[in-house]
Structure formats: C-alpha cells, structure tokens
C-alpha cells in the first residue's frame, strides 16, 4: 500500500477534522445562545446558517478539486488536511513546490513523491509555512478589535461607510481580476484569465442579484426568500457561464488576459 494513503494517515486526518468540527460547533452553540439573549429571532439565525451553508457548497467543491490536483504527487491525505486547516489553494501548492524544489526535485508536484523523507519535508514546510496567523492571533486580536471598536464607536455614519468601504475593497480586488487579471502563464490553463467567461459570470451574477432584490422589494411576501437570493445568483451566474460556453462558437470565447 502507498505510504501516503495508509490507514494511519487517514486516522491523523480524521482527528484533525474532528477537532475543526468540534471547535466550530462550540462557537456556533455559544453564538446561538447569545443571539437568543439579545433577542435575535431564531428565524434570522436559521436563515444566516442556511445562506452560509448554500454559499459554501461550490467553493468547497473547488477545494476538493485542489486536493485532487495535489493528490497526484502527495497522496490524498496530506492535501486534505492542509486544505481543511488554515490552507488556501495558492499557499499549499506553492509550499509543496518550494519544498520539493529545495530537495532538488525539479518536477515538484507534477510527479508522485515516492521518498518518505521528501514527503515529510513537504508536510513540515506546508505546516510551518502556514501557521503565522495562529501564532499572532492570541496576542493581537483583542487589542486590535478594541482599538477598532473605539474608533468605530465615535460616529455611526463614519463607522458604517468605513466598514462598507473595507468590504467593497475586498470585493473589488476579485471583480478587478475577473475584468483584467491574467491567468497562470506557466500552467497555460484555458479559462483562468479574464475574458468572455469571467465577465459572463460576473455580470450574470450581478444582474440576477439586482433582479432578485428588485422583486423582493416589490413583493413583500417574498421577503423570506432573501437569504437564498445571493447563493442562487451565484449558481445562476455559473449557469450563464455554461450557457455561453456551450452556445457561443469557440472563436468568440475570447480570453483577453491569459
């Protein structure tokens, strides 16, 4: 049996998954209790949970896809653990690549790692390379949030527009990449740079969301469906991408930044 996918490896992965689940449930239960004390309706809390769950499905599936990409070289378990905790797609791939290159393995994650020492080196680099936020959080978070809280507490309108500005700043970074971002040149993947498909996804989801907001505003009965509007717009945006991809002749599916 491949040492990278032995029952021992799966057991370690299982322990980490259980830890993450228990921690999430712990904070979830605390928040729901506090929410009840504060008088937040249980419907509102349920809707939040439902919306969040719906939003997570598609990105989670794309994370599974990354596990698949990395599993060719590292087996299933290590990428699974790394992307369940702290991980993010761009970090994990570059950590693994960097560790393998340091050992003179120039193929990197393009070929299967068969030497246990190379494998553990990758595991160490991936883990130690990603823990920085967890090291500093216990020291800085409380102070950081107190300071922010004080600044925000001074003026309600200023606080509202500044927090909207921070959110918008993040959203625009992604929107900008959909309009003008280039893809991975080395990998030469079709569809990862800005082009007809990324703009279709962007405009499609924006249009559906605005349409739903308009309908919900006009028909108060539909208020209950508000929490579905965003995830549904995302899925419909993805549907538009497929439609354009299959209906438009290939010559028109241009990628202006590839």
């Amino acid at each position: 049996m491949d040492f990278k996918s032995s029952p021992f490896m799966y057991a370690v992965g299982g322990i980490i998954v259980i830890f993450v689940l228990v921690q999430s449930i712990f904070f979830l239960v605390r928040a729901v209790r506090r929410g009840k004390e504060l008088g937040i309706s249980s419907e509102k809390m349920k809707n939040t949970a439902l919306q969040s769950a719906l939003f997570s499905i598609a990105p989670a599936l794309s994370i599974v896809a990354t596990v698949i990409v990395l599993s060719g070289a590292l087996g299933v378990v290590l990428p699974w653990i790394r992307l369940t905790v702290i991980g993010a797609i761009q970090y994990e791939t570059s950590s693994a690549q960097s560790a393998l290159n340091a050992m003179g393995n120039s193929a990197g994650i393009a070929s299967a790692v068969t030497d246990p020492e190379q494998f553990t080196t990758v595991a160490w680099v991936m883990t130690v390379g990603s823990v920085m936020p967890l090291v500093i959080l216990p020291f800085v978070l409380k102070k950081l949030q107190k300071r922010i809280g004080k600044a925000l507490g001074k003026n309600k309108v200023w606080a509202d527009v500044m927090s909207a500005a921070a959110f918008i700043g993040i959203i625009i970074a992604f929107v900008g990449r959909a309009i003008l971002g280039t893809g991975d040149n080395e990998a030469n993947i079709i569809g990862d740079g800005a082009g007809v498909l990324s703009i279709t996804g962007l405009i499609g989801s924006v249009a559906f969301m605005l349409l739903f907001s308009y309908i919900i505003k006009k028909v108060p009965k539909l208020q209950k469906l508000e929490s579905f509007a965003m995830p549904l717009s995302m899925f419909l945006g993805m549907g538009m991408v497929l439609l354009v991809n299959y209906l438009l002749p290939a010559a028109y599916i241009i990628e202006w930044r590839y």
Partner: protein
Amino acid sequence: MKSYFDKTHTWGRIWTVAALIIFLMMPVAFSIHLNAWPKAEYFFKGLASVAIIFYPTGIIEVISYAPLLGAAGTYLSFVTGNIANLKLPCTMSALETSGYSVSSEEGEVISTIAVAVSSIVTTVIIAVGVLLMSVTGFVERLTSPSSPIYPAFQQILPCLFGAIGATYFYKHWKISIAPFVVVIIVLAFSGGTQVGVLIPVSVVVALIATHVMYKKGVFDKEQQRLENG
C-alpha cells in the same frame, strides 16, 4: 462578570493555541510513523522561500480581515483557512441580509454563525469528497477539466463576488469608484497581480477615499437622516 466579547477572546485564544499544537503534531506524527525526518538544510531552504511571502501576508491578513469577521469569526476563520474565498463572502452576505453592523454584538453573533456553519459545511464536503474520490472518483469526474461543468467551476470567484458585490455597489456606488479605478489601473499594467496583493491595496484606497469623502460632506444626507432619527 466578564462580557461576551471578553469570554470570546479567552475561548478564542485557548482554541487557537490548541489548534496550533494539533497542526504541528501532524508532521511530527508522519515523521515518527514513517521514521523519516526532514534534513534541516532542505526544510529551511524550502520554508524560507514561502515564509518570506506567507509570514508578512499572514500578518496583513489578520489586520485586514479581523475587523470584518468579528472576534469569534476571526479565531475560527484562521483555523479553517480559505478566508477570502469562503469565510469573508459568507460573513458579508450574512451581515448584509441581517442588517447588523459587524461592530455590534448582534453582528458578532451573526458573523460567528456564518463562519461556523461555513467551516462545518466545508470540512464535511471536503471529507466526503476525499472519501468519494478514494472510492469512486466521483468528485474528480465532476470537477476535472474533462467534466462538462468544469468551465463553471473555473469562474466561481467572479460569480461569488458578483452576487455579493451587486447590492454593495448599488447601495454604496460612491465608495466603489476609487478602489475600482485603482485596481483596474494596477491590473492594466500588471495583470498577474494576485488577489493577496490586490486586497490590501484596494481596501486602503477605499478607506482613504471614503474618509476624505466623509470629511468633504459627501455622506451628510445619511448623517442628517440618523440625527433626525
């Protein structure tokens, strides 16, 4: 008596330290089990090239995401990762729909629920996906480049942020202009700029521009509405 916020920080610290220990035990367990320890030279060489980017980014991420995720949301998000593509969108949409501000205690509760549920769903989907993959190869067929719905998966981020951005842009179009223009200019010259670099740039521009507009009285109508109750 300790407030909910204070207790959240105490629990958050305990869980974060526990998480750190468990994660670091993972490579230790692998090394013991396989009786294969990395050579210090290779380990540090491999680590150096990623740490030089990831450590400063880690610090910037904590500073820029913490105000948006709430206290418990931040502790949880940094343990489970995938913040920009999962935890932040969930929190943003939850706060937008519920109408609470993240700096209020109600907002703290809502953001915690959003992040916790997202973490649970993601963890379960990845685990099930990994199992299905090892047994049947189902997920691989669904998301591989040969899958008919692969093009849609490639465009997840534009669709995700389009859906969330729509109402923000509509409501706060004045705030959106400056960061949009700057991000487009940056990408026009350097299209390969990754989101990790674009986010701090875009957020800082948005904050500065909004503060200046506030000082110039652009948001006076909102202020008046608030004062008049």
